[in-house]
């Protein structure tokens, strides 16, 4: 199994990957709370980016509404916890089917009626917005007043209830990111992965050689939605309050996809690298401007946007393919 997953990967890449993993594993020992918070955000977006990438990068379906699945996961688990005292992991067992079914519903409608490309993207936004307004009226989750999870000080970390110090959330997200990475690698190396790539490159050609396009696109949407819902569960228990206006906001969907696009759509490591780059760029710019004594609201975003432009103009495929070539880490098969 391990051999199959690592086949074709240069030893150097495996070594660097291992080093990064060990580095992340020991990071909380050295990182202050601020760095830890940033690392949590990085892992959160690396994980959600990876999940999004299954749909876009592998199967070629552009989703601009992934906040929908985050929100569904978050609200399902949080509501079960608040109303029935059901812990997040059991809640996850409900959240995953909820998100997966929603994904399947959207996928079914879209792929059945051959809604593709930008049209599909707008459809995903429409459903996310639909959910935002819907949850604004959904009394069981406290509508727009916001759903608050009880917060108390916890003497110890309770992973079973997801209550405790940020370090615990860090490791939960690290584990999730690693598992998502391995799962994506396994998927890419499987039959499904090859069919996805065929569909992504040329849907008509894929259909003509007998691939059941509808079926495999549905699998991509369902896996992606299910994975994303877990991020929502963590989000709910990390922040302890949910507002439809915030959770389902389009800007949340955009935040999820900036990383993988900047890092490299369709690559395995792109979402992780992209998430690091985006968060470090954001934090770095704030600190840099601060150190120059510049306190103008909005200026950080202007510089951030300009750098984003430069990156996408200079490296249209994302940073990772370029970096991998430079470091000699590219897979041998291409």
């Amino acid at each position, binding site marked *: 199994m391990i051999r199959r997953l690592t086949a074709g990967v240069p030893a150097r890449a495996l070594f660097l990957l291992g080093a990064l993993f060990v580095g992340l594993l020991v990071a909380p020992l050295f990182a202050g709370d601020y760095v830890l918070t940033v690392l949590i955000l990085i892992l959160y977006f690396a994980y959600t980016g990876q999940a999004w990438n299954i749909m*876009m990068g592998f199967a070629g379906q*552009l989703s*601009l509404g992934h906040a929908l699945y985050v929100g569904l996961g978050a609200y399902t688990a949080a509501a079960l916890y608040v109303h029935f005292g059901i812990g997040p992991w059991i809640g996850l067992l409900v959240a995953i089917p909820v998100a997966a079914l929603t994904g399947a519903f959207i996928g079914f*409608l*879209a792929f059945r*009626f*051959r*809604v593709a*490309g*930008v*049209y599909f*993207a*707008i*459809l995903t*936004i*429409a*459903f996310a*917005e*639909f959910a935002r*307004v*819907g949850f*604004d*009226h959904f009394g069981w989750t406290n509508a727009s007043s916001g759903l608050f999870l009880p917060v108390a000080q916890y003497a110890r970390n309770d992973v079973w209830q997801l209550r405790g110090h940020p370090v615990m959330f860090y490791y939960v997200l690290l584990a999730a990111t690693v598992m998502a990475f391995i799962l994506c690698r396994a998927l890419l190396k499987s039959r499904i992965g090859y069919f996805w790539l065929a569909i992504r490159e040329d849907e008509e050609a894929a259909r003509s050689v007998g691939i059941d396009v509808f079926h495999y696109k549905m699998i991509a949407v369902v896996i992606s939605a299910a994975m994303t819902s877990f991020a929502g569960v963590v989000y709910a228990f990390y922040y302890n309050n949910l507002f439809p206006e915030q959770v389902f906001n*389009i*800007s949340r969907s*955009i935040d999820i*996809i*900036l990383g993988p*696009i*900047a890092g490299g*759509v369709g690559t395995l490591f792109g979402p992780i690298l992209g998430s690091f780059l985006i968060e470090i760029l954001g934090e770095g710019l704030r600190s840099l401007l601060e150190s120059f004594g510049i306190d*103008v*609201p*909005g*200026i950080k*975003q*202007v510089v*951030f*946007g*300009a750098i*984003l*432009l430069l990156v*996408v*103009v200079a490296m*249209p495929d994302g940073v990772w393919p370029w970096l991998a070539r430079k470091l000699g880490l590219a897979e041998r098969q291409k």
Partner: protein
Amino acid sequence: MPIDVYLNVAVSGVLTGLVYGLMALGLSVIFGVVRVVNFAHGEMMTVAMYIAVTLFSALRLDPLVMLIPIAVVLFAFGYVLQAGLINPFITRPEHSQFLLLVGIAIIIVNGLLIMFGPNSQNVQVAYAFDSFQFGPLIIDATKAYAALAAVAVSAALFIFFRSTMLGTSIRACADNYTGALVVGLNVNRLYALTFALGAACVGAAGPMLLLIFDVTPAAGPAYTLLAFVIVITGGLGSMPGALVGGVLIGLTEAMAGLVFTPSAKSMFAFAILVLVLLFRPQGIMGKRTA
């Protein structure tokens, strides 16, 4: 509820819808011909709105008069943007275009915040609060003017695309990219011109909208989304389609607000979009291409 309330709301919804349509026209041109996913569309319009605010406070020029010079400014802006930045992205995948335009959008939103501050701004024209009364029917004057302008601008565009040499070339480009190359059209220049034309529409729509809505730096993204909803509903690349889509969305929102609760009215607009995508993916007025 008395019947005249329905009448008033319906008329107001149609007028608002026409104004929405005017805003979406530019996107229809850009998205329909150049095939660029202009995710900075609403933000470009807020630029036009702020130009109008600035000109109004400096020169007291009526937005209806400023419409043409601002359209010219946005035309130039659009041409430069397309030729300088967006053109290489035309053949790139949509997510790449998306990142590029989101970058542009972020710069515009926050640039406006730095330049104009966070407060909402508008223009105080003499007729800002006028309304016409016909029996039980009360019509908002600014909305009526803006709706008329929307119809006029789209008629002008329609004539341009049908009856001028340039317009026909652009349509040829949209219908058949390779064919246009084969017959020797300068596709890059045509694309830049088309994008500029789309931007000019936005430039015309901005001052008109300013009569009805206030502008804030953060207003852009919502307009972008609305424009996409309208264009897809109405039919990509169809001038009348944008107006029809706008009216349909405007009317749906108004009636849903009246009959159900206004806080859920945008849900109904999205429901219309979903239905159109599923049952008439080319849009209400669009041609079936595939």
